[in-house]
């Protein structure tokens, strides 16, 4: 088969380790062309979109954003249709020893490498990748499967959030399942507004704040979205994007644009909310 040489992107914040992986790859897979090496999670997405490689090696712990978040963002922005649409790259996560992460990767059948990367282990990964690249399924199916894996990894302890220091206390990293939040206390100037959660239509993360939107107005709070998720009823508020939690009962329509992306319209708010591909599975006609 005379397909063009496979191309790879390495995202690893430690320069020596990036060089080491590249060196090992040169030995294990001489055909592979490493098109770029980046040192943070933001450049990883940018470069991957620009270069559209076949294989991604993403370190988990990186500045900017984690390898996992970078993969999610990339999957969301990946062009699937049109002449530029290439299959979503094969993902390999690279991590230093972490029992929880390894368990999560195994459970989701996600390819991973442990640092220090060893030749024998890398050889196996390379064989799997070569096989996957020659029998490439249509892009859409690939992306769907990757999404399902990422969705599971996002909630796995030790992958998305750092694993707790003491091993058996894994459950304690999850916010305490206490009584759900009923009131949001939002300060503005010298006042604190008491906003009933029942009035909130959606929450949206914006920089250092979270915007709280009711039908009438908007408030800002400092509690991070990921902390709010733990305190809200997930049946009532659905996560539809990394930065958006929406009240499911006030969604009126879901529409798909030309690029295949979903948007929500809400009763009581004029704006349209984009749905991440990661959460598109929530919206299917019965």
């Amino acid at each position, binding site marked *: 088969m005379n397909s063009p040489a496979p191309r790879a992107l390495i995202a690893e914040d*430690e320069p020596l380790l990036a060089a080491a992986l590249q060196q090992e790859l040169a030995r294990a897979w001489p055909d592979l062309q490493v098109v770029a090496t980046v040192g*943070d999670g933001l450049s990883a997405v940018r470069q991957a979109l620009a270069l559209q490689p076949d294989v991604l090696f993403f370190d988990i712990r990186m500045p900017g954003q984690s390898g996992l978040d970078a993969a999610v963002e990339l999957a969301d922005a990946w062009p699937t249709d049109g002449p530029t649409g290439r299959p979503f790259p094969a993902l390999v996560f690279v991590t*230093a020893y972490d029992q929880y992460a390894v368990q999560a990767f195994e459970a989701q059948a996600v390819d991973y490498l442990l640092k*220090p990367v060893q030749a024998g282990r890398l050889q196996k990964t390379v064989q799997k990748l070569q096989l996957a690249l020659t029998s490439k399924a249509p892009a859409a199916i690939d992306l769907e499967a990757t999404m399902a894996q990422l969705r599971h990894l996002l909630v796995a302890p030790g992958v998305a959030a750092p694993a707790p*220091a003491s091993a058996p206390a894994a459950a304690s990293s999850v916010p305490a399942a206490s009584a759900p939040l009923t009131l949001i206390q939002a300060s503005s100037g010298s006042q604190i507004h008491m906003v009933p959660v029942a009035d909130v239509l959606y929450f949206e993360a914006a920089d*250092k704040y979270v915007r709280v939107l009711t039908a009438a107005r908007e408030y800002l709070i400092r509690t991070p979205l990921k902390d709010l998720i733990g305190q809200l009823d997930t049946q009532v508020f659905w996560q539809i994007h990394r930065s958006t939690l929406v009240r499911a009962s006030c969604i009126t329509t879901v529409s798909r644009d030309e690029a295949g992306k979903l948007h929500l319209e809400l009763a009581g708010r004029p704006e349209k909310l984009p749905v991440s591909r990661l959460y598109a599975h929530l919206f299917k006609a019965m």
Partner: protein
Amino acid sequence: MKIDWIEKLQHLLQVVAFSLAIAALHYAFRPDKPYDIPARYSLAIGTLIWAIIDFGRHFFPSSEGRGWPTGLAAFLLPVSGVVLGYVGGTTLGDWWCGISSWEEGGRSQLRASIGITLLAGSLGTYYFYTKSKSAWLHAKVNEVRSQASEAQLKLLETQLEPHMLFNTLANLRMLIGTDPVRAQEMLDRIIGYLRATLSASRSTQHPLENEFDRLRDYLELMAVRMGSRLAYTLDLPDALRDVPVPPLLLQPLVENAIRHGLEPQVDGGHITVRASTQPGDSGPLLVLEVSDTGAGLPASLPTPGPGQSFGLAQARERLATLHGSAGTLHLIARNEGGTSATVTFPLKSSPNP
């Protein structure tokens, strides 16, 4: 209220034996009287006193844990147990033997049995009280012991964090092939770091100079890993080199500065560790400051929990143990961005300039 019925049965048997022994003693002094009548009274009174006290203590919330109530109840419980047990036990004995102790004829007998009851009641109460107290103390000692070893294990676990260890080894593995001289330097740093970590729990003080050497080992290791993203300055005035400090006190602060300050930033940053003195109310104070130009403090600090802010909690605890309220640790957001952690405690032996 959780009642251990096996233990209660043991107590009951002990009380029965004790009551029979008292009756036997009574019989030894008064062989002219029958044995069975005092034995019946003794059994009735003894068992009743025991039942009131031993079951009664479970009704006081303060006896949870120690097994004995605190405050006024600690005194009232045995007294009311003895009084009620005596009256009730005597009535029960009367009914059992068909005698009436409360009428004229029984008065002298009553006086004798009051004395015996008081003596035996106090003895029995004292016996069970010390027994439950020593069991409680024993459990407490075990608990403290296991807490101490757990804290030590946790400390070791944070210092030999797998992520740090394996990433460092991965770097070393690379260097061995490409730059053996640097690899040897790095290995020496690892050795220094491991030696300090493993012996930190054994020695209580070391000179500030050594503390700074260990920080340099750690920062050098991190510099190999982070490349140009990490820059650092260690500032130790000569006059303060020999000041004794608890080993690896600053280590968790520097680790935090890297992990929460520099690592999340794409461009990294600078860490400064500075030692200085400052006049205090009762003599000069040693001021150790770890500052970084990193991401800064989050809007809401994570609540201390397993794995979170253990470094800070542990440094605070060590300061409190050594210097009480005179040792402080302040964590502040710097105006120019980043975070600064300052440890202050009395400079015990003022160094000669």
